[in-house]
C-alpha cells in the first residue's frame, strides 16, 4: 500500500526553484532517507508534505486522499507527524504537557484518555524522568527527543524527521537511532532527512537524493551512494 505519493510537485520562491518537478512514492512500513547538500530543498519538501507550504504545481496524495490544498492541522489528524530541524518545543509547558497537546489535538481525544499513551511515548523516548520539567530547560538531546516524542504523541502513520541526529555526540546519536529503529519496527512509516549518513543508513531501506530542488537519484542505500553523480554532488568528491 502507498502511504505518500508526490506527483510532479514544484515550488518556487520568486525566481528560485526550491522544489523542481519532484515525484516519488513511499510504501506503508517503509523507511526512506532523503539526502542532499545544504540548500537542496529538503526541508522545503517536508514543509510541502506537512502543508506548512503549499506547492505551486503537482499533487500530494496521503493514504489515497489528495491533500495538496489542505491545512497542516488536517494533515496531522490524518496521520502526519513531524520533527523540526531546529527544535521548537512549547518552552513554557512541561515535557509531559507538550505531549498532551499533541495527543489531544493531533488525535482529537479528550485529555483523560491520553495519559497512558503519553507515558508510553515518554518511556519509549527516554524522557519519563523529565516529564515535569519545563521544555525550555532541556538539553539539545532532550529537545531532539522531545521533537520525536511530540510527533509520536500525535499517533502518526507517517513520521517525518528533519535532521534529528544533527549536532549530537556519537553516543547520543547512537541512543537516538536505537529509539527511531524501535519506532520503525512498531510499524510507523518514516521519511528522514539527515546529514549523519551512518545514522541514516542504519535505519532506512532506501535513499533519495536532492540537488537544487531536483530529484537526482533514488534506490537502495549502497547503490545510490556508489553512483558517481551522487558522490560528485553530495560528497563533493571529484571522481
Amino acid at each position, binding site marked *: 500500500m502507498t502511504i505518500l505519493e508526490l506527483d510532479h510537485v514544484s515550488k518556487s520562491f520568486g525566481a528560485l526553484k526550491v522544489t523542481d518537478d519532484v515525484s516519488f512514492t513511499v510504501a506503508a512500513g517503509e523507511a526512506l532517507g532523503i539526502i542532499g547538500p545544504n540548500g537542496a530543498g529538503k526541508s522545503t519538501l517536508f514543509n510541502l508534505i506537512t502543508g*506548512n507550504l503549499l506547492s505551486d504545481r503537482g499533487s500530494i496524495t496521503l493514504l489515497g486522499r489528495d491533500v495538496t490544498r489542505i491545512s497542516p492541522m488536517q494533515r*496531522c489528524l490524518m496521520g502526519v507527524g513531524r520533527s523540526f530541524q531546529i527544535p*521548537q518545543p512549547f518552552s513554557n509547558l512541561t515535557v*509531559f504537557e507538550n505531549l*498532551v497537546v499533541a495527543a489531544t*489535538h493531533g488525535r482529537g481525544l479528550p485529555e483523560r484518555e491520553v*495519559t497512558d499513551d503519553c507515558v508510553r511515548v515518554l518511556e519509549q523516548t527516554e524522557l519519563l524522568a523529565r516529564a*515535569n520539567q519545563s521544555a525550555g530547560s532541556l538539553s539539545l538531546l532532550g529537545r531532539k527527543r522531545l521533537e520525536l516524542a511530540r510527533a509520536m*504523541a500525535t499517533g502518526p502513520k507517517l513520521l517525518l524527521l528533519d535532521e534529528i541526529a544533527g549536532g549530537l555526540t556519537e553516543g547520543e546519536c547512537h541512543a537516538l537511532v536505537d529509539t527511531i529503529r524501535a519506532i520503525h519496527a512498531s510499524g510507523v512509516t518514516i521519511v528522514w532527512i539527515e546529514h549523519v549518513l551512518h545514522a541514516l543508513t542504519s535505519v532506512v531501506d532506501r535513499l533519495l537524493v536532492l540537488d537544487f530542488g531536483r530529484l537526482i537519484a533514488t534506490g537502495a542505500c549502497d547503490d545510490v551512494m556508489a553512483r558517481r553523480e551522487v558522490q560528485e554532488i553530495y560528497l563533493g568528491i571529484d571522481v
Partner: protein
Amino acid sequence: MTHTVTTRTRASRLATIAAVLLIAAGLALPAFVDRSMIKDLFFILTMLTLAQYWNLLAGYGGLVSVGQQAFVGLGAYGLFGAAIVWGMDPVLALPLAGLFALAVAIPTAFFAFRLAGAYFAIGTWVVAEVVRLSIAQWKAVGGGTGTSLPRSVQADMTGTDFVGTLFGVRSAAAQDILSYWLALALAVATIGGIYLLLRSKAGLALAAVRDNAEAARAVGVDAGRMKWLVFLAASFGTGLTGALIYLQKGRISPEAAFSVTDWTAYVIFITVIGGIGTIEGPIIGILVFFVLQTLFADYGSTYLLALGMIGILVMLFAPRGIWGAITDRTGLQFFPIRRRLQKTPRPEP
C-alpha cells in the same frame, strides 16, 4: 506503577478555601458597610472583570486589543436600548446586552484577524471609534448627548424589592446592593470560567500557540479557532460588564461609554502592573489601581502622569508585573494550571 495527572498545589487548596470564605463575606457585606463602600467595591469588581477579559485576550490569546471600549459601550447601549425601546427589565436584559456585543464582535474579528500585532491593536481601536460614531446616531437612546435610564425602570428592577426588604433599605440603596451582587457574581464566574478554560485541553492549546504557533499547528492545534474562541468570549464578557456598569450609573453617553481611557487604558494598566498572563495579576493590579485612584485622583493630569510613570517603572524593573515578580521569588501559584505527572502505586488486586 501507573501514572495520574494533577494540577493542585498546597497554595491552591488554601486559595480554594479562602475564595469560598471571601465570596461568602462578599455576599454578606452589604449588611455591615455603608453605600459608598458598596459603590467602591462595585467599581473594583467590574474593573477586575474587564481586566480579566483583556488579560484573556492579550495575555493568553496574544491578541493585544486597544478597542475593548467598543464592547463596553455596545453592552451598555444594548442594555439601555432593551430597557428604553423595548421596555425590558434591565437585570433580565443583561445577557442580551452581552449578546449584542458578541454580534458586533463576529464581523469585527473577521476584519481584525487579517491584521497582526500592532496593526491588530490599531485596527480594533478604529473599529471602536466607528462603533462610537454609529451609536451616536441612535436617537432613541439620546444620540450624541446620551440619556438616562427612566427612574421607573430602575425602581421596578427584578430583585430590588427583595434586597430592599432583606436589608431594610430604600430603593436607591437596594439598587446599589443588587448591582454589587451582580458584579460579584460576574467577577467570580469570570475568574472561575477563565481558570477552567486554562485548565482544559483548549487552554493547553492556547499556551502552545503562544509559545510556538507553527509547532502548534503541526501537532493538530487549530490556532485560528483558538483566536476566535478567546476574542468572542472576551467580547461577550466585556459587553456584559459594560452593561452592568451603566445599569449602576443609570446615565449613558457615547463619549463616556466608549472612552478609551476608562475602559481600555486603565484596564491595560491594571493587567500589566499586576502581571499579564496570570489570573492573580489583575487581582493585584486592581488593588494597586484603586489605592492610587482613591489617593491621587483629585490631582487631575498629574495623577495620569504618575500612573504612566508607575507603568514604565514596572515594565523596566518587573516586566512580568508585580505578581510575576512574586512568583519568580516564591513559586507561589493560587491558580495553578501546570499538569504534573505523578507515579501512583498500582492498587493491590
